[in-house]
Every structure is written in C-alpha cells, then in structure tokens.
C-alpha cells in the first residue's frame, strides 16, 4: 500500500483546523443570531424596518442606513446586527488560518514551490479581507 493512500501531513493538519474553525464559526453564528433577533443588543437597523433596506442596491442601503464599508463594523459590534459579523468574518477567515498552519509543514518537507504558492494564497486572501479593494458601485 502506497503512502499516498494516507492523506499527507499537511492535508490532515489543514483538515483538523478547518473542522475546528467551521464548528466554532457555526456555533457563534447561531448564538449571535439569537442575540440579534431577540433584541438582546439593540440593532443598528430596527428589525421591523429591514424590509425597507433589503430591497435597496448596496450603495443606497449603505447611504440610507449610514453604514460605512470595510472594517467599520468593528466599531458597531455592540449592535445586534453587527454582532453577527464576528462569526461571518470568522468563517471567511478560517481558510487563511488553515493556509498559515500548513506553510511551516511544507517548508519542513522542502516542498518549496507549494510553500510559496500557499504564501501567495494567504496574501491574496489577506488583500481581499483588508477592505482595500472597493467596488466602483452602480
């Protein structure tokens, strides 16, 4: 039986962290959504007003609700709706953590090409997460 029948060390390390991150993220999502809909923290947009907002294009919605783009939600995390951004960005960030986890393993195995591709992937995802890239709007 070939060694390749077994998942590689980096593949298992990636899977283990992904599994943990996914479970933590989904649990957080349920908890923060519970807090939101039960009004435990006052939301930025009243829930009964949401139908007036969710039909708008995103640019109009941001203007109407006085919301700024990028990481500005962090300053509003005490509001019920923005609290939900914690699990959402956590779920969107798990992959970055998984890649960071496997880079040292790839270097240790002298798999330099893949280590560099993994570094490029981390840079791409960090760039996307940074909020630097803005859409032109319509």
């Amino acid at each position, binding site marked *: *039986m*070939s060694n390749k*029948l*077994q*998942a590689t060390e980096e*593949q*298992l390390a990636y*899977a283990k962290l*992904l599994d943990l*991150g996914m479970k933590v993220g*989904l649990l957080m*999502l*349920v908890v*923060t*959504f519970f807090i*939101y*809909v039960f*009004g435990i923290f*006052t*939301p*930025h*947009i*009243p*829930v*009964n*007003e*949401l*139908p*007036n*907002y*969710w*039909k*708008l294009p*995103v640019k109009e*919605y941001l203007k109407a*609700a006085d*919301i700024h*783009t*990028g*990481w500005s939600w962090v300053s509003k995390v005490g509001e*019920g*709706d923005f609290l*939900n*951004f914690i699990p*959402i*960005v956590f*779920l*969107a960030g*798990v*992959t970055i953590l998984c890649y960071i986890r496997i880079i040292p393993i790839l270097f240790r195995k002298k798999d330099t*090409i893949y280590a560099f*591709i993994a570094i490029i*992937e981390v840079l*791409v*995802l960090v760039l*996307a997460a940074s*909020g630097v890239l*803005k*859409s*032109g709007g319509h």
Partner: protein
Amino acid sequence: MSKKHLKFLFFAVIVFAVFLVSSSVFASSDAAAPVLPVEGGSSMPWWAWPFILFIVTFLMGIVAVLGGVGGGVLFVPIIGGFFPFHIDFVRGAGLLVALAGALAAGPGLLKKGMADLRLAIPVAVIASSCAIVGAMIGLALPANIVNIALGGTILGIVLIMAIAKKSEYPEVKQADNLSTALRISGIYHEVSTGQDINWKIHRTPQGLATFIIIGVMAGMFGLGAGWANVPVLNLMMGAPLKVSVATSKFLLSITDTSAAWIYVNNGAVLPMMVAPSIIGIMLGSIVGVRILAKTKPAAIRYIVIFMLLFAGTRALLKGLGIWN
C-alpha cells in the same frame, strides 16, 4: 437516518422557526439607523421573509444533496428571483451559503483523501484571485445587467448538467510537464470495488487557465462553482470523478472565501438573510445526506434541472424588464 436523529432534526427546524417568529415579540425597534419611509410595503410582517427563507433553504439543502449540486447554485437564482431582497445581498448570502457548505464538507473529504490538497492549491490561487475580480465587477454592475448575465449563466449550467458526460476514471496516458513538476497525482481507495485507484492529470495549463473564467463567474454571481469545477477537473484535466467532486467542494471553501470578503467589506451582507440561509441549508443538507444514504431518486436531478431552468429564465426576464 435513525428515528432519533430525524426527530432531533425536526425538533431543530421547529425550534428555529418558532425562534424566528417569536423574535417579532422580543426584538428591539430602537436603533441607530435612520428610519426609511415604507414604500409600497408588503402586508407581511418583517419576520415572514426570513422565516420563509429558512424553510426554503432547508428544502434547498435536501434537494441540492439529492440532485448532486451545491447549495449556492440553487440559492442565488431562486432567492434572487422570488424574494424581495436586492440581488447584491442575495449574491453576498449565496457566497456565504456556498462557503459554509464547503467548510463543513472540507475536513471529511480531506481526511479521507478524497479531496486532494496538492491538486487544489495551484487551482485555488488562480480561482480565488479571479473571484475577487469577479466580485468587484459584480458589485459595480447595475442589477439588470447582473440578472441578464446570471440568467444566461444559469441556463448555460442547465445545458452543462443536461448534456455533459462524466468519466469515472478518465484515461490519462501521460501526465503533463507542469503536473509532473508539481507532483500532482495520487491514489485513492474505491470502497465500492475495494480497489486502490492510481490517478494523474494532464492538460494542467489549460485547466488552470479555465479557472480564471470560473473564478470570475463565481465571484460575480455568488454561485459557488462546483458546476464548472467538476467538468474541468474530471473531463479536461483527467482527475477521477470522485476526486474531482471532492476537490471541487473543498476548492469552494477557498474560492468563495476571497469573493465573500469583497461582499462583506462592501456592505453587501445582511445578517438577517445570511444566518437563516446558512442554518437552513446546513440542516437541509444533513437530512439530504441521510436520505441519500438510503436512496437516490433519479427524478430529483431532473427536478433540480427544471428548477434551475425556471429560475434562470426568471432572472433573464427580470433583467430584461419583461417579468418584474
């Protein structure tokens, strides 16, 4: 699925539904955002749409598993076509739904060796970079253009699903230079036959180039991209079908991550849409997987094709202003 598990899932769905409905009593109406005047408001209470969204995504989760498609490809055209949410928010939620599904499936597929990290990593760096570009283009385009392009894409997907052949073990006579240099090959254990299947790939440069287009489309429409990943990995690059399906599913967790960040950072994410959708589709998928273990009704695939045909036509006509 045991009766105990079914009862628990049924209980979870009921609890979540009651939880959404009862929240109308407890939810705070105080808020920091300015209050918009209601224009042509629906007579339905605010919680009705998230509640319906939860039920529909729960059913969608079951159908998606049985029909062999990702949740995202059903989510965007159906929710975008028949719900009052703007297409910008639908695409943001669609990406997060596809991402959550991929994150949930990824660990198991990687541990079993079905999804292959060596195959996924080079593909992912291209697809995820291009998904960023796609997301930025998608958010910059007017809704009618997005709907027309989305409708056309969905109808194209229907065509692919209807006519594309699949190859369980494609014949790859010789691995190409690039895949050899990257050492992309493997062995997986086929449980049904008890055989260890050796696999390698070819046409790697062409395959990687195709992922430029797939990445852009995934980001632009928030669809996920399993419908395109699988034929390229399987038919073009020659990976066995099971490896292609598993690697494609895992790949979505990377491609959709980059596009999801663009939607999050540009404000196109509404928690009141995202949370019920993710929870609904995940619960539905669990039920779907359990049903799939016992039976696979062939008719479901035709139902999925019909649903996509209908939703794609709806998006196209909506974009053209014929059916608003």
